[in-house]
């Protein structure tokens, strides 16, 4: 697979943009999660309004074989509704925090979607035939008078317009006191884990009325609370291994074979803090917002506020690679604290071959890092550069006194335009970038 960018043989170009163009963005339409399925054929998005939209990749056009097909809407359904916990007088948001696809085992597709409290298993299936010629009911569905039936016939399947149905098959509820931040499907394809601020539960897909609590970091005295769980993920190949990150910037790898309750980690990943960089906000910027295993399973990647780090699972004392996403924000932390941007939780993702990583930033910028060449690039998801097959121009943020042409100064960055969620196709160089209420799809242009 080609690298990130910059070479003569690889460039990113605009493919599609989904979503309204209106300047007035409804909060419910803000995309809160993006996920490709295992084959890359389907792309799911969840939004703050509890809605899930699934896009399907169309086959390449015969007329333009050099271009990949487009993603078109495949299914839309309301996954979660707002709820109210009367006992605790709390409103439960319908915002979709995470979507995770299950490996496809038959014609239907399954995905898990979760809000703060409840996880749901959805089945997305196609129907392109329907039975006609029932004996007991008319074509419009009305029951026929049994006394008027004089003969029997065998119903036949007739083709119909393709209809995609989404139906909730399982609802996993009432297992989390705190806000769910992660779900992850295990490699055994039978279990999955869900993590909230203080606990991680292990579920079986078929059992909804109970789950196993495998991590519990809630202290006996809450006044002693010093950290929370921020993300968790199952190992891609070893079904007994999972990791979870914390607000203190640490990652713990646990082996479920060791004990029923995995409070004692098998490995503890932490990079010592640089005392010279200590500030009022050290704890905030060191909090890990996302953790992702590489496809190979040998590495994992963590995202904190200013950087992305790649860890070798065999080395716990420091990451093997560190990439600065927007170091120029370090001097702006006070302002970012005031406007709450410092609490933004950026996600990160690997490409299919684990040779590149991607994460978002502000001003609708997103960053890619090539692990082999150590080159990085900043691109922008904007309507202005959304012409079909238009090549994306690298962007640069000016940090010094003199600003070059086409550079943007730090003070000009729009912190309301943030890219928190990105996804990389598991096989091809196709990326999905969520910019507020718009979903941008970019692909490589092979010259």
């Amino acid at each position: 697979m080609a690298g990130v960018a910059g070479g003569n043989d690889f460039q990113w170009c605009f493919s599609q943009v989904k979503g309204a163009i209106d300047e007035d963005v409804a909060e419910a339409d803000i995309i809160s999660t993006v996920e490709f399925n295992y084959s890359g054929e389907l792309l799911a998005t969840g939004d703050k309004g509890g809605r899930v939209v699934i896009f399907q990749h169309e086959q390449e056009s015969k007329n333009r074989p050099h271009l990949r097909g487009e993603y078109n809407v495949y299914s839309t359904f309301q996954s979660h509704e707002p709820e109210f916990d009367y006992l605790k007088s709390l409103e439960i948001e319908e915002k979709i925090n995470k979507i995770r696809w299950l490996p496809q085992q038959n014609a239907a597709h399954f995905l898990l979607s979760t809000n703060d409290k409840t996880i749901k298993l959805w089945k997305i299936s196609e129907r392109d035939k329907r039975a006609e010629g029932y004996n007991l009911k008319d074509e419009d569905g009305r029951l026929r008078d049994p006394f008027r039936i004089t003969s029997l016939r065998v119903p036949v399947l007739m083709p119909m317009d393709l209809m995609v149905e989404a139906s909730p098959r399982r609802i996993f509820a009432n297992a989390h006191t705190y806000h769910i931040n992660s779900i992850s499907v295990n490699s055994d394809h039978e279990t999955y884990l869900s993590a909230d601020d203080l606990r991680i539960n292990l579920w079986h897909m078929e059992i909804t009325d109970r789950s196993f609590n495998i991590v519990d970091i809630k202290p006996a005295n809450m006044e002693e609370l010093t950290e929370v769980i921020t993300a968790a993920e199952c190992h891609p190949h070893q079904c007994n291994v999972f990791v979870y990150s914390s607000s203190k910037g640490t990652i713990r790898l646990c082996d479920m074979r060791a004990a029923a309750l995995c409070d004692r980690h098998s490995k503890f990943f932490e990079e010592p803090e640089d005392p010279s960089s200590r500030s009022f906000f050290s704890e905030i910027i060191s909090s890990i917002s996302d953790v992702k295993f590489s496809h190979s399973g040998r590495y994992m990647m963590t995202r904190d506020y200013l950087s992305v780090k790649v860890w070798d699972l065999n080395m716990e004392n420091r990451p093997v690679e560190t990439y600065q996403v927007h170091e120029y924000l370090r001097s702006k932390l006070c302002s970012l604290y005031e406007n709450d941007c410092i609490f933004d939780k950026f996600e990160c993702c690997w490409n299919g071959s684990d040779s590149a990583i991607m994460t978002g930033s502000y001003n609708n910028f997103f960053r890619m890092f090539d692990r082999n060449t150590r080159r990085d690039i900043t691109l922008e998801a904007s309507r202005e550069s959304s012409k079909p097959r238009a090549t994306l121009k690298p962007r640069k943020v000016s940090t010094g006194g003199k600003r070059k042409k086409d550079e943007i100064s730090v003070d000009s960055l729009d912190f309301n335009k943030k890219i928190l969620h990105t996804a990389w196709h598991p096989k091809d160089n196709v990326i999905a970038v969520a910019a507020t209420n718009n979903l941008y799809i970019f692909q490589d242009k092979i010259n």
Partner: protein
Amino acid sequence: MECAFEAQNLISISLRKIQSSRTQRGGIKLHKNLLVTYVLRNARQFYVSKNLQTQRTHQYEDVAAVRERQEYFELTGSLTELSDDFYCNFTGVESDTWQCGAHQHNGQPAEVAHQDASACAMLSTSDSDLMVSDACWSCADKSPWELPIQNAQANQKTVLDLDTHVVTTVTNGYFHSDCCAQSKQPQGAQCYAKKRKMDTSYHIVDPEFYLPDFGLVPCKRMRTDDELHSDSEQLDSTNISNLISVLGSGGLSEFVSWQQTDLEQIFAAQTICLKHTLLTGSGWTRAIEAF
């Protein structure tokens, strides 16, 4: 001095965030509020340690002057100095000497020699808003983050009034109804701090921002006529009905309890008991308690 000013700003901003988080949709975000408490802790530690260093070389008041006000003050010298120091430096201007307008027995502002600037120079020359210069960290051979906090007691709480946006203290149920911020111009000994409202630009909080680590008994401040008048204007229209505890004396117990109990139970379990006899008609409609 800018760093101390920023620390105070951060404290007020953080308290506001905690207060607003309680009304956010979806309930209190444990993660975010935990991070906010870290900022609060860092800012508080920095501010307290800075003043501890200042007090070590600060010239104390005449003993007689202290006795004269004994019946009105129950503060120890360190707490008085803390409020003075806050008071004196609220303009945030770095200076080798500063005008200290409070607690001078002769009624005149006195110049107080600034301690060794190299030891406590807080003005950062870096681009960072809140990075502290190396000199600060080397104060007293210890980082301000590490200086011990004296006389920590859990019965003093710093409270943010949600209506008047004034930060003050409640100690053992005694509400400092006469806590008020001084005007920006340093004044003589007879004019004590007036309450200062926090506006959107986050002016410095009340100089009687007693930090619980000093663990001192509350005081009844001697008030001037001007001060009383000012207080009545600010507080006349408010009535205390609830005091909402955000943080316990040391932790996040309230967050958990909010997740699990009714809000009314929380109100009933408050440790702060307002003494209405001290309030003399003034009060809050709502207040938020931290530390």
